[in-house]
């Protein structure tokens, strides 16, 4: 971990020459590698991996000299498969939903929190196929770094989310604990414009 920190600082300092200022409303598209776990009533857990996609609209509340506070709207999608799936016994799942959040950015670093309202569909494919659909909410924290290239920026972030799937949604005897860890790869486009100006440009003849 110490070795990694030293490498990180070295690369960060050598990269200052390519820094370009971005600002205003930004659009962020991300692809992620999720690791998700749902608990069962008997204490066992179902683990999933797969692919995640995310889109964000970031609107600045405050921006000054490399520091920014952003309000964000998020749409997230997880495409998952249970890690113990095998031929003849497969569980797959799709989770999708919107959310809102707040992020704090300092130079290349960002920290944020999102509140998501997700809809999930799980399918069991085997001799007796079954499916279930349920809703849940989850709170997610993330930390990331990004490097700008003009109006664009490439970024990397780590997200950690926890939530509960209520037993009233699933019919199980207990609520299920939801835990998520995701690595996200970001491509961000900063428009340089305020949200109001951007909205006007969309309806302008």
């Amino acid at each position, binding site marked *: 971990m110490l070795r990694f920190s030293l490498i990180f600082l070295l690369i960060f300092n050598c990269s200052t020459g390519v820094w370009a200022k971005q600002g205003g409303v930004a659009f962020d598209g991300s692809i992620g590698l999720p690791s998700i776990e749902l608990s069962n009533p008997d204490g066992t857990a179902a*683990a999933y991996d797969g692919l995640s996609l995310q889109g964000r609209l970031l609107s600045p509340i405050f921006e000054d000299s490399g520091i920014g506070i952003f309000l964000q709207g998020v749409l997230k999608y997880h495409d998952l498969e249970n890690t113990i799936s095998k031929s003849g016994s497969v569980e797959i799942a799709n989770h999708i939903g919107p959310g809102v959040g707040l992020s704090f950015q300092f130079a290349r670093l960002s920290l944020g929190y999102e509140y998501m309202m997700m809809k999930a569909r799980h399918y*069991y494919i085997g001799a007796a196929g079954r499916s279930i659909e349920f809703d849940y909410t989850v709170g997610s924290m993330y930390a990331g770094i990004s490097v700008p290239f003009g109006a664009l920026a490439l970024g990397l972030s780590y997200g950690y989310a926890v939530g509960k799937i209520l037993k009233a949604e699933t019919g*199980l005897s207990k609520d299920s604990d939801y835990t998520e860890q995701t690595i996200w790869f970001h491509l961000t486009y900063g428009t340089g414009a305020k949200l109001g100006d951007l909205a006007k440009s969309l309806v302008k003849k």
Partner: protein
Amino acid sequence: MRARYMYLPLILFFGICTTYLSLSITGCGADGGSLYMAAMGLNEGRILVANSVAAPASKTITMYDLSGNFISVVLDKTVAGDVLRGLAQFDPYNIILSTDTPDELKRVNIFTGQAVAYANNALFTGNIYDTVKQADGVYLTVESNTIEKFVGGSRAPAAGNPYINTTLGACTISTARGLTLNTAGELIATSFTNARILRYDVSSSTSVCSTSIAAVGTQPVPIVSHPNGMLYFGTQGAPDTIYEVAEDLSGAPTAILADANIDNPVAMAVLPSGNLLVANDTTDAIIEITTAGMVVNSSFIKNAFTGTISAILVIPPQ
């Protein structure tokens, strides 16, 4: 030239970050090891039915929802010829099946149908019938005029007489058939030939006979323990009857149903609703009745897999 080399640290940086975080998240990822119960329908509960028909041969375990709707054939031993006898729950995904020929306990996954040998012993021979789960990894199984105990797949005791021998105190077994555990954790057994209901203290490595009562009717076979503190059992000696008795066998059994709906009862189970399921060998049907003896559904499950039913197991909603 300077601009070109400027990007080199960035590329190196992203590569190291990605590799490090990927390895970290993989190492710290969820252990899992299970499927999500709600996705498999275990939030709804399941009914498992074992049958062993000699001709035409049919030896299967089938799965239904709690309304009696067919879901799947879990296990088909028709070709192998195993005689399927008792069912007990192992965990939400697996059951224990007792078989006569071969004389053993098998663990069966109710979703994949995979069956593996769980317990057998050179001393585990004779007529194998019902099996019941006493605790995790502990099973009590009928073997002719005795009851065997298996702990973690091994016979207990490892050698010598069975855990419950033919005669123990005031209890004498003559062809044991049905087993159940009452709410106090005591073992209740039906003794077919001498028409007795027997109660044992099985809380220690040595069993003790607590009570032996007459079944009133003759040839008692299936027996179940109900959360209301009562036992319900069926007799095959005319008239075929369903009886109710206190779970400590205090007092004489009371008949709750003895009409055309009861015809050679061979297996029983308790639904989460509190109603009873009774499998009739003559009509090849499972009926649903209340604890007061009212018939709710005279054809709760009746299909090609309900001939000569040997056991019914209800897995409650998880």
